[in-house]
């Protein structure tokens, strides 16, 4: 055996700055993870801080992270199934950007967007589906083609593959080599990550490889597919991370009011995004009292070290 076997294994641990700067360029197509759960707020904020422009961002169901990125002026196109503030209302920055023709839309449904990623993940140029044949959605997706099933002769939609340049996701834990473990609600996060050419992951904690091997079923992305891992506890705030902290519903509700008003929103983006230099500052801004509350309101799934 190579005497340096263990030490010669490559680490994927990176600073957030370099993880973003090295993998995301102006014009990149970016999949952002998190379906209600484990939304990569803090790492996506770094894209705003680095002011990388002309981005296309995509996912099935998108929440206020999309709103923030649109408001920051770095997004030229969205590929989506839903953009809103779940349980609260509209995405006001999205609404305004559409009204003012400031953004290109490629509008799908949640399932069709997931199927686009699924085809990408499987290396297929398209996947058939029964959806998008009636109603106004099919008229809207102008380039979608139909095919005839060669066995049943029925018409189907040929949902084209989507292969994002980079996926940015958040998860519970990873080892230094980049084996990523996530549990709780996934939605289309893994689908989108596996569809993408590069994968950047922020995690609540870095653990030893031996911890990963205790529950290999929980590993959702293998090390060799991961470009960079960044330890960012609280990186999914104001969304939540199962077994770590709960969702700050109030933050989402207040964001509705803030995002209706350009001045308030500018202030919010400065305060919560542009002026933040570290995850420690982000935590300070959330405040010790709230951090405690959210930790105590965790979702209740058992962690593997409890």
């Amino acid at each position, binding site marked *: 055996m190579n005497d340096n076997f263990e030490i010669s294994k490559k680490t994927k641990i990176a600073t957030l700055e370099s993880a973003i700067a090295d993998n995301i360029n102006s014009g990149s197509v970016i999949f952002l993870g998190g379906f209600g759960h484990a939304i990569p707020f803090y790492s996506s904020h770094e894209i705003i801080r680095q002011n990388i422009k002309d981005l296309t961002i995509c996912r099935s169901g998108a929440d206020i992270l999309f709103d923030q990125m649109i408001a920051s002026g770095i997004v030229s196109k969205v590929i989506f199934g839903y953009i809103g503030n779940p349980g609260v209302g509209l995405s006001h920055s999205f609404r305004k950007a559409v009204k003012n023709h400031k953004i290109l839309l490629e509008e799908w449904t949640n399932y069709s967007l997931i199927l686009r990623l699924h085809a990408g993940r499987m290396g297929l140029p398209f996947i058939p589906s029964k959806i998008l044949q009636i109603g106004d959605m099919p008229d809207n997706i102008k380039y979608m083609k139909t095919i005839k099933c060669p066995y049943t002769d029925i018409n189907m939609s040929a949902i084209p593959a989507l292969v994002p340049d980079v996926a940015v996701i958040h998860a519970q834990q990873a080892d230094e080599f980049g084996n990523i473990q996530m549990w709780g609600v996934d939605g289309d996060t893994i689908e989108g990550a596996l569809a993408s050419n590069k994968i950047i992951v922020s995690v609540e904690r870095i653990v030893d490889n031996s911890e990963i091997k205790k529950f290999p079923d929980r590993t959702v992305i293998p090390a060799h597919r991961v470009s960079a891992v960044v330890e960012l506890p609280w990186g999914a705030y104001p969304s939540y991370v199962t077994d770590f902290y709960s*969702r700050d519903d109030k933050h989402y509700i207040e964001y509705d009011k803030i995002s209706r008003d350009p001045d308030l929103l500018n202030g919010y983006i400065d305060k919560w995004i542009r002026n933040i230099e570290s995850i420690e500052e982000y935590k300070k801004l959330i405040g010790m009292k709230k951090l405690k509350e959210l930790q105590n309101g965790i979702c209740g799934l058992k962690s593997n070290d409890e």
Partner: protein
Amino acid sequence: MMNDCKILSQNARIAVLAARDLQDEKSCFVGIGIPSDAACLAKLSHAPNLSLIYESGVIGTLPHSPAMSTGSPSIAHNSDMITDSFTVFGELQAGRIDIGLLSAAQVDTFGNLNSTVIGPYENPKIRMVGSGGAHDIACLVPELIILMPHDSRRFVNDVDFITSPGANKEFNETRLKNKLGSGPVSLITDRARFYMSKDGWKLDAPLAGYSYDEATEDLPWDVGKGINNSITISDDLFNAIRYLPYLESKN
């Protein structure tokens, strides 16, 4: 003693009326809000084996606090299964989820739903959230139940954009030919239940305590005279509301 539904919040009235349509041992694709509340009430009363399936991939849960997203902690908490969205939509496309529940900003007489834009698509007055999974559910589920607060602005002759297709003749032909789900079967408001006919929504009956006129107030459709006098809510179902306290206090 008849249960007085007029003491309930608007959302609670929709939820109890819709819950009646959810039979035991069925599986049910539910969204956040009243659809989820209705399914919970059914499960807590006459349908203990009703399987609740959320598009986030959560199955077999009974949230006791309101959730803002199908991926929220209170949905995931205490669930029997967490899989991915791909899997639950696949079950839907395979015809293996029996019932879907949807709401929207606008509905027309054939159950076409709009959650995309008010005004023209290219130049909207209000850009809304888009389909999410609504289009997919409306196309694929064998039995679709539509839930709407009684608000005359929501009931229209033609929706501005058909996000989730209904039961127009032309759509029904495609549904049959290409083996889609069969589309909307009932419309539940906080005042009445309607069923889908080949000519659009017809009144089943008003919720007990509401008159025919209240049930059909400002509806732009000819919904007929109703086939039943009124719909009463069983004690079991009515009593189940206290397990969802947030439902009572809403509105």
